[in-house]
């Protein structure tokens, strides 16, 4: 269970109603990680979706030519969107650049919630897709 105040000021939750946010709070938890920890690695099972509350995460996307695109994720932003979209595996490394604190949801519980409340699933994935569109556009640091 996540205290409701922790869910305030999270950009992708802005389109959600108070009831939807309460539903999300009920199935999530809070976790921490140290600098240098990997939340997940490319190819790992996409078990969790995270929102960063404190700290900084670097996402590393391996490219076919061997280069690596990186993206820095700051507080208020989502990490592990693969799990939000229902994908089986992550497609990046997620490394803590600083000691960090997160809100965390298990994919299985999120998918169950979305299947019970399609509107919530629609709004949350839509908000997340805006971020994904930015990543696809390639405006990342090489």
């Amino acid at each position: 269970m996540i205290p409701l105040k922790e869910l305030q000021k999270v950009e992708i939750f802005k389109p959600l109603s108070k009831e939807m946010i309460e539903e999300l709070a009920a199935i999530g938890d809070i976790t921490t990680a140290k600098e240098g920890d990997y939340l997940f690695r490319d190819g790992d099972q996409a078990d969790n979706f995270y929102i960063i509350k404190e700290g900084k995460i670097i996402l590393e996307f391996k490219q076919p030519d061997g280069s690596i695109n990186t993206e820095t994720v700051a507080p208020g932003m989502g990490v592990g969107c693969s799990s939000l979209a229902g994908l089986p595996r992550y497609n990046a490394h997620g490394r803590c650049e600083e000691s960090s604190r997160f809100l965390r949801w298990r994919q299985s519980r999120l998918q169950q919630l979305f299947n019970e409340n399609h509107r919530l699933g629609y709004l949350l994935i839509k908000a997340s897709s805006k971020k994904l569109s930015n990543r696809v556009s390639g405006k990342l640091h090489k």
Partner: protein
Amino acid sequence: MIPLDDMRDVKDFEGMDPKMLEKLANIGEVVSTPTGTYLFREGDHAEYYYILREGRVVLEFRQAEGLVNTETVGPGMGVGCSSLAGLTAYMSDARCEEPSKLLRWPQSKLRHLFNQYDRLGYMMMKACALSLHERIGVKS
């Protein structure tokens, strides 16, 4: 109105029942474009979401350092996900590399439909997110 035959074998529509497909078909249209046509350019109002049925479209993503990342989109794939995600502007150029046939939906009509039918909106957004994920990391 899109003929239902043209809605078949589209990955975005997997798992949708016939009624959902009919609702989508009712608000879309089929367009054909010659080689060299730009469906849209970066910064244009994200008015339409497209699914390519025939031909080939190249997406060109301009980078800050002057480089251009490209992605080739083939039949059955979506183009203009910005409009599906509710963004105001496209984030790339989209150029037809061959004569192409596309299904097309106005963003405003899609949004209206998704607001009426939650499950349909959820399934389309999930398909869009999956497609975006698959595309991350495969730019040339």
